[in-house]
């Protein structure tokens, strides 16, 4: 028994390094996608302190809108722009209808409001686009297809081109976001709001405007995530379960840290794939569903604010 748990999996890893590389790669790719969703969460949490449960459904909603526009005969590039427009309107609407009346309410109330938003978005999305899964328009968006086989370590490792594209696009987007935060006027305002709402207000930054911008930014992140995720599988509301997968990523990285979201995403992605592949068979498989939470819980017990989170200071 102990042998099976502590020694055998490592023997397998050593025995077939190509399989290990393949598993690591799959883990990294799903980790990147988790990180992207977590990124949307972090953006909103930093700027408004709202724990946005609706991020996962925004991913689905954005992807569905994109596909929906394309099905109506709109060319792909225009569909992307129109979808961005929809996400902007959504951001404005959320800020005006949900956030503004609830300003200064306790965290859990805002959290629940985003729950309500999740349901509204599911309802609207199903109402307009129907409940059946859709195909992502990967080719029209010039996303590569097929796979590259690489011989290495005495075996063959398959890299899907779409996965490589996802990793590249995600890195570019994260770099762009970092630059946006660091060097632009709005980015500086966003960081000011994240530091302190009151101080930001006192130097003339409009909170409402910032919130709309940050929800729009989260909407863009959601659209890109949706395209990537949709291209790997299909676009359906079943995807909202991935939002739940982003939660352990978040707590692992800390709610307020963008690097945390990325590192956390990678750790969770790799961890759950490796665990499923090497330890899953011991208990009958399917542990992918909960191992992420257990990993995150393990980290939390050591660092209650996550790996990169701000230190929690409690006062009376």
């Amino acid at each position, binding site marked *: 028994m102990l042998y099976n748990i502590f020694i055998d999996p490592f023997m397998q890893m050593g025995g077939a390094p190509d399989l290990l590389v393949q598993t690591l790669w799959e883990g990294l790719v799903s980790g990147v996608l988790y990180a992207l969703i977590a990124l949307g969460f972090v953006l909103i949490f930093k700027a408004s302190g709202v*724990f946005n449960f609706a991020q996962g459904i925004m991913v689905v909603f954005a992807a569905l809108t994109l596909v929906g526009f394309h099905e109506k005969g709109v060319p792909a590039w225009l569909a992307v722009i129109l979808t961005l427009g929809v996400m902007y309107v959504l951001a404005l609407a959320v800020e005006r*209808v*949900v956030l503004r*009346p*609830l300003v200064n*309410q*306790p*965290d*859990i*109330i805002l*959290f*629940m*409001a985003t*729950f*309500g*938003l*999740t*349901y*509204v*978005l*599911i*309802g*609207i999305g*199903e*109402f307009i686009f129907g*409940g059946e899964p859709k195909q992502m328009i990967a080719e029209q968006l010039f996303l590569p297809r097929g796979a590259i086989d690489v011989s290495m370590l005495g075996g063959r490792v398959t890299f899907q081109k779409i996965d490589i594209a996802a990793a590249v696009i995600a890195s570019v987007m994260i770099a762009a976001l970092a630059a946006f935060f660091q060097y632009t006027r709005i980015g500086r305002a966003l960081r000011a709001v994240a530091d302190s709402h009151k101080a930001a207000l006192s130097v003339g930054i409009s909170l409402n405007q910032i919130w709309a911008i940050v929800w729009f930014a989260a909407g863009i992140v959601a659209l890109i995530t949706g395209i990537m995720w949709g291209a790997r599988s299909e676009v359906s509301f079943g995807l909202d379960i991935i939002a*739940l997968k982003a*939660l*352990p990523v*978040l*707590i692992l990285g800390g*709610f307020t840290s963008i690097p945390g979201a990325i590192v956390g995403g990678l750790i969770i992605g790799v961890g759950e794939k490796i665990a499923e592949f090497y330890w899953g068979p011991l*208990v*009958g498989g*399917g*542990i992918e*569903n*909960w191992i992420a*939470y*257990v990993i*995150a*819980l393990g980290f*939390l*017990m050591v660092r*209650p*604010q*996550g790996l990169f989170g701000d230190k*929690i200071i*409690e006062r*009376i």
Partner: protein
Amino acid sequence: MFYREAGQFKKTYSADMAVFPILQDRIGIAVILFIAAVVIPLTGSNFFISSVMVPFLVFSLAAMGLNIVTGYTGLISLGTGAFMGVGAFACYKLTTIFPDVNIIIWILASGVFSAAIGAAFGLPSLRIKGFYLAVATLAAQFFLEWCFVRVPWLYNYSASGAIQVPQRTLFGVAITGANATPTTRYLVLLGIVVLMTWVASNILHGRVGRTFMAVRDMDIAAELMGIRLLPAKLTAFALSSFYCGVAGAVMMFLWYGGGEAADAFNIRQSFNILFMVIIGGLGSLIGCFFGAALLNIVPIILKFGLPAIGLAIGSETAEHINHLLVGGLIIFFLIVEPHGLARLWQITKQKLRTWPFPY
């Protein structure tokens, strides 16, 4: 006009601290109990009882469980569905291993198993707070959900993985299984819910409940005042899971009558119950009933009410509108009254007391 407390003088401390200090409230609760226990079983159709009242009572009980930990102690839990599942499976195993013991005893005892598991998963709450804890309870939800599917011992190795609720009797009348009439099930359920509400009310108004609320309001301050956080938080988790476990057991035995349990106790169920607690009102027992009633009635009206008045909508469209409405309602109630329906009810009572000369 009729809701006045003029002339009702409290002569003792306990009369002043009573749960229903005003005579009209006591009359009101007696009338409600009378309607629930006599009028509805006599006049309600089988459909009304089995698809409106029974789910309403089951969810009220589950919401009460979640409210103890989230509303009264301030620890967000997203594992309600799983804790309900533990209760259902515990009850199933107990009644198949010891078939001669009365099912009511097993339904209540299954809560104990749920409480033990809930307390175990509540352990991280000492170190982890707020949303971080919410995610930690998700670990419980997904892990237990996985167990319900992967541990065949739980469902007695049946090929489909479904629970078959056996027939059990109370005083010679079938109360579970295929032969039990909806009315009997309803009455048994009502008895359990009334009993457990009464117990919960007493616990929460007493020392234990005050401890919970102190922890909710600020746990460091509570600790400084001499409340030991570990026992307080674990008691909250255990008590909450006890209620959830009983709710799960009655859900399986008195409502579903069997089926694939893993589906019934998934993460959506947890969210559903969280909605009830939030809409009903955090930290309020009556709010649990309000929330459960509202979230139960909306889908039923959409499903059966609209076709009845001539608006025929497909079941799929009804499902979509249901999502839309529930989401909209959540946002609406949060904006109008973040403290839920229970607070609205309090405001209404206050208005009634001063009507028609409000000051």
